């Protein structure tokens, strides 16, 4: 993707990426997550209503919708971080591949389904120790192979060149954008099948945002990505599939091309064109 491409408006981005019908045809894939009749409750408050969807593997799925519609709630169910909030309840079925999501031990599941948060949250440890953390707690590699894994992860997160000479300084000394890429590297180090990104760019400036978007685009072949974003432009740039949430319901789930060029629901169209609430 060129920089000019990035700075364009929504319509232009949409035309460039999806205008050519032939080129835009994506081959079908198998589902990474299968969600059936999913409901979620915070105490008595129902945050998600009867969700049914299949998140395709090795693609980028963007979740969009107005604030408070339940995007983060849904994302946090996928790695069961939702369970860490007291007084919550979930009903329905979710499977990872063909295994029941709730049959996993949460630590095993979270190794396979990584998550990057809205605000960068590096540990107050060295850059090296941040990336090595997940590998260590999961006892995945002997210490002798750690260096290699750390370098590989930092390269994949497009951070290696910037930090290779200061792996042992505190991660807190990095800029916000670098910290966020470090958090991505940290997640990649445990070789997850899925990476969940909850508004990963909302605390970053446009340049740092562009870097993360490039990264998301490139990671596609490596793992399945589910990204929550408020930025339609960002969704149009990186997504292969898009889910539109409204008040805890999934209004529409489509390939990005269909969603952006020709949405099936009036509410989706209103939201995409900014004619909303």
């Amino acid at each position, binding site marked *: 993707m060129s920089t000019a491409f990035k700075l364009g408006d929504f319509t232009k981005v949409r035309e460039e990426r999806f205008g050519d019908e032939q080129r835009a045809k994506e081959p079908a894939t198998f589902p990474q997550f299968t969600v059936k009749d999913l409901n979620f409750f915070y105490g008595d408050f129902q945050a998600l209503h009867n969700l049914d969807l299949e998140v395709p593997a090795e693609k980028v799925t963007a979740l969009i919708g107005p604030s408070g519609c339940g995007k983060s709630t849904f994302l946090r169910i996928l*790695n069961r*971080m939702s369970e*860490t909030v*007291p007084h919550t309840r979930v009903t329905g079925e979710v499977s990872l591949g063909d295994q029941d999501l709730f049959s996993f031990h*949460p*630590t*095993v599941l*979270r*190794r396979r389904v*990584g*998550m990057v*948060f809205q*605000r*960068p*949250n*590096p*540990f*107050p*440890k060295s850059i090296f120790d941040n990336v090595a*953390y*997940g590998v*260590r*707690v*999961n006892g995945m590699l002997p210490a002798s192979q750690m260096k290699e894994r750390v370098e590989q992860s930092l390269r994949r997160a497009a951070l290696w060149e910037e930090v290779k000479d200061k792996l042992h300084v*505190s991660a*807190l000394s990095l800029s916000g954008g670098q*910290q966020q890429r470090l*958090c991505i590297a*940290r*997640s990649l180090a*445990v070789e997850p099948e899925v990476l969940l990104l909850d508004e990963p760019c909302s605390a970053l400036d446009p340049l740092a945002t562009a870097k993360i978007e490039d990264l998301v685009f490139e990671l596609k072949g490596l793992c399945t990505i589910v990204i929550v974003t408020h930025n339609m432009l960002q969704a149009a740039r990186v997504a292969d599939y898009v889910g539109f949430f409204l008040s805890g319901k999934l209004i529409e789930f489509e390939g990005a091309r269909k969603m952006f060029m020709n949405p099936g629901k009036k509410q989706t169209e209103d939201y995409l064109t900014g004619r909303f609430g």
Partner: protein
Amino acid sequence: MTTAAYPPTSKKIANAVMLSITGICAFLVVAVLLFILGYLVVNGAKSLNWAFFTKLPAPVGEIGGGLANAIVGSGKMLLIAAALGVPVGLLGGVHLAEFSGSAFASIVRYTTDLLNGVPSIVMGIFVYTLVVVPMHHFSTLAGGIALGIMMIPIALRSTEEFLRGVPQALREGAMSLGASKTQTILTVIIPAALPGIITGIMLNLARVAGETAPLLFTAFSNQYWSPGFDQPSASLPVVIFNYAISPYEDWHRQAWAGGFVLLTAVLLINIVARLILSRRTSLPR
């Protein structure tokens, strides 16, 4: 007339009065400390000499000698106090911070606050019953245990506070990488809070170092060295107390010197603790 650029005089007077009253009160606090410090320096420092740190107390009537046994005694008791108070306070604090929602945690928190309010002399009597009576004599061990119990409430609560101060985002970061709750606590939360926890514990040690009442019933006192941990032992606060109420001029002199040494030690611990806290790496928001 144009609008006044300055507030009316009444406002200025109110401001000045407020500033003076609060200023005087703040000054009083500092003045008390300075007065104590000054008095101790003047009376204590001049009575200090090498013998004070190396010699045993001189027999009644003789001039000279030192409080070496009391200094070592205090050190040994603080060691025992730390060995008891630090692990219990630390682990209990971790429990309160990490399992804060449970009814058990609320009960512990409430009990701890009550325990903190128990007069120190009562704590002394409690340990007397618990340790001294079964052992049939006073001991360093009993004194250390009394000080250790006095440390627990504050060690617990300060540890809890510093652990709670660790951002939730760090917990979530660790757990989302597949760390178990125990791993998260041990490898992320405690290291992030460690400078604060250590500071809290040092301040707490400094506080109990000056306790006198709980030692009267537990370690009692001793004119001589107290070998091991099961003999009555001298300690700085108790010796200061005994010497200060004695009729001998030379003992008064030594009490001043003892007070000066104790205060200097407490101040040093305080300063080091604050240094540790101010040097801690800042955490992400």
